[in-house]
């Protein structure tokens, strides 16, 4: 590691050069002569945002594989009598497997995936092979979990996001649709859609609740579903879906006439449905985009389950827990990274970690990420045991939104100028961690 003074020299030289280069470029008429100024400015402004819209294209055909007499549901887990923070054996195995995968496969490609705004298909396939998208699928329909699996989902989200939060979003998004259908779908919906999520070729899918507006409240979506005879007609816009162009299935929240907020299962190819790019500050490997509904006409059977308000509220809560689990993983990744950095980096003749100003910042990251983790576990565990978990979810979300962002910020701060450049991952985690307080829906436990 170079000394501080050498480093400053390089940084100053580099910064000077960069500004000079930019200044010359902006003042030069070369761009105008070549008629590429717009292009360069757009590149400087928005990276790969290209703003074109496309109609969604019909994907695979979903057909009911078997006839169920009633909806298949995972049972709540048995109430536990003792306080315990140890995952059971099965959970530990899964957790370790995903953790290894995140370290060996996810972290090494995270920087490139962030730059490309795309996660390699191969990686998503491998992640899927770990079974992460079928945790909410009842056993009768080919799922692996007999009992509800919120805690297991949290452990997996945490482990995967330790590799990269954006890739974790891309990899886990289809599972949210499977979980939504497995939890609240009608027997026909379960039989039609769930088998596809238990095979190798899992469809990309998105649970779309968030809308593009300030102070968005998921309990009051402005997307509407009005009745037209037996049909539903949906209008509105949904924000920050993972890989919407690839999606073969959407579950979309709308204020349903006569029902209140409810979810609708929508297959691409439906008329009035378009997707567009929506690049964001973070979660870039998930190639985020919008889904626009313009008089999208759906059959009566598109309403998920019976459209019960409590199902919808539970969905919003479970999504928040899932985002907490990702924030916990990214926060822990930040802690691990800065620990090593501040121990190796020297200034004034000794490791900077020998200074309280630096060391205490590391302590705070440790304390707050542990608090986030425990609060998230508690909310998930209550969900699995069939207890009310509204309060615990709100607590975990508040912590993950606020402390998560603090941790992201401190992670960059502790590396100083080095934290601000893309040589280190902390600037990516800074961008990703902001999502924990913004995202609604999209993932489920």
């Amino acid at each position, binding site marked *: 590691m170079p000394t501080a003074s050498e480093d400053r020299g390089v940084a100053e030289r580099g910064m000077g050069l960069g500004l000079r280069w930019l200044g010359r470029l902006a003042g030069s008429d070369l761009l105008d002569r070549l008629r590429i100024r717009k292009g360069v400015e757009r590149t400087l402004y928005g990276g790969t945002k290209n703003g074109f819209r496309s109609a969604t294209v019909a994907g695979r055909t979903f057909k009911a594989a078997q006839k169920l007499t009633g909806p298949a549901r995972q049972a709540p887990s048995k109430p*536990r*009598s*003792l*306080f*315990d*923070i*140890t*995952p*059971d054996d099965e*959970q530990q195995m899964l957790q370790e497997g995903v953790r290894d995968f995140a370290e060996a496969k996810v972290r090494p490609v995270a920087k490139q995936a962030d730059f490309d705004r795309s996660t390699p298909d191969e990686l998503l396939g491998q992640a899927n092979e770990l079974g992460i998208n079928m945790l909410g699928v009842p056993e009768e329909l080919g799922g692996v979990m007999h009992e509800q699996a919120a*805690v297991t989902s949290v452990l997996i989200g945490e482990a995967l996001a330790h590799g990269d939060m954006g890739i974790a979003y891309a990899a886990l998004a289809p599972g949210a649709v499977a979980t939504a259908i497995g939890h609240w779908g009608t027997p026909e919906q379960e039989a039609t859609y769930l088998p596809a999520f238990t095979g190798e070729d899992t469809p990309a899918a998105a649970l779309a609740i968030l809308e593009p507006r300030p*102070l*968005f*409240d*998921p*309990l009051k979506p402005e997307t509407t579903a009005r009745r037209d005879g037996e049909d539903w007609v949906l209008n509105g816009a949904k924000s920050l879906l993972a890989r919407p162009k690839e999606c073969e299935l959407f579950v979309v929240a709308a204020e349903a006439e006569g029902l209140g907020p409810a979810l609708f299962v929508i297959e691409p190819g439906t008329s009035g449905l378009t997707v567009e790019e929506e690049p964001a500050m973070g979660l870039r490997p998930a190639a985020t985009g919008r889904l626009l509904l313009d008089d999208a006409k759906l059959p009566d059977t598109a309403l998920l389950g019976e459209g019960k308000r409590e199902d919808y*509220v539970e969905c*919003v*809560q479970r999504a928040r827990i899932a985002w907490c689990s990702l924030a916990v993983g990214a926060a822990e990744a930040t*802690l691990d990274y800065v*620990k090593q950095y*501040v*121990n190796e980096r020297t200034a004034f003749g000794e*490791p900077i*970690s*020998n200074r*309280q100003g630096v*060391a*205490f910042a*590391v*302590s*705070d990251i*440790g*304390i*707050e990420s*542990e*608090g*986030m983790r*425990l*609060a998230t*576990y*508690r909310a*998930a*565990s*209550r969900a699995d*045991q069939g*207890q009310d978990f*509204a*309060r*615990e*979810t*709100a*607590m*975990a979300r*508040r*912590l993950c939104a*606020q*402390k998560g962002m603090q941790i992201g910020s401190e992670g960059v701060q502790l590396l100083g100028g080095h934290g601000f450049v893309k040589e280190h991952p902390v600037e990516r985690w800074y961008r990703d961690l902001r999502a924990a307080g913004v995202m609604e829906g999209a993932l489920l436990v």
Partner: protein
Amino acid sequence: MINLEIPKKFKPLVSQGNQVAREVFRPISRKYDEAEHSYPKELDMLASLIDGMNDGSDMGGAGAAGVRRESNGGDEGNRNGSNLSTVLGIIELCWGDVGLLLSMPRQGLGNSAIASVATEEQLEKYGGKWAAMAITEPEAGSDSAAIRTTADLSGDEYVLNGEKIFVTSGDRADLIVVWATLDRNVGRAAIKSFIVERDNPGLKLDRLEHKLGIRASDTANFTLQNCRVPKEALLGNPEIDTKAGFGGAMQTFDNTRPLVAAMAVGVARASLEETRKRLEEAGVEIDYDKPALTQHAAAARYLEMESDYEAAHLLTLQAAWMADNSKPNSLQASMAKAKAGRTCVDVALGCVELCGSLGYSENHLLEKWARDAKILDIFEGTQQIQLLIVARQLLGKTSSELR
């Protein structure tokens, strides 16, 4: 199997604690805040009741002596024992009044120290007595390795000389656990704790402090002048083992820090519950499903404070649970103490602000809780000391590298 709910077997204890807090502590809370230095005699009967709870069966204790680490008896399974039950009991009682909890006979931090490191003989001799803890000196607070009180072996006795300040329950307790050094030149390894009977003629009470909060609890300053105690009054190992360092003395903290964190959790919860009630009277409802920032600013602030409380609470339970399961917990104990200490102060002061003059005036208890709160971020290791310990653990630093 992950479950962070209060275990069923401790529910009776929690509800008993809550009842005591509600019916015994709260009604006399203001009285003893005003009558500083007068002994809350109402507590005598209560203390016997708590002794009974401690002695009763496998339910674990509700008091300070409950922190003794029992061996697991070869049982590999998950254990919810007396560390957890003690923490739960303290949370409830401090929801009532933390000053009164600190004044509870036989529930001093000295009792926890004795429970943590005493031999069976010492337990027998000193059990059932009320023990205070004397560490701090005028020139040595957080830097407990710098204490100057000396203990010299003279025949079968140690002779103690020095000055001790900030001894909680020092005037009322039967015993004082005094930290002293066997050799000032050796540093922390030479520091041992000694049990001194309160009526020892060498132990002179200098004065009682007037304080910001926890005024129901007496805080005493002592001079030790040729104070002679029997050899057997030394707690733990009498050898100076430089490798083991602080060993016995510091080990106590792993068990007692979660208890102080629990006090902070109790005070924070009292403030939050009272404030929620007042806000609801004022027409502000707290909604857990609606995004915080789309609610009333007071509700958003409340949710923020409650979420810090949630983290502090769970970190505290975790530290105690680890102690019950014989897992090393210095890191988690300090995390819990740091988080709970600062949260308690922030929450109690924030609640005063939210409730306006109702919070600030002596007509209600919110202002008192805000005064009581501050000590919980100071004693048993200040915020800064906890951050030091957490940092050293996380970064693998020695105390000479990270000072």
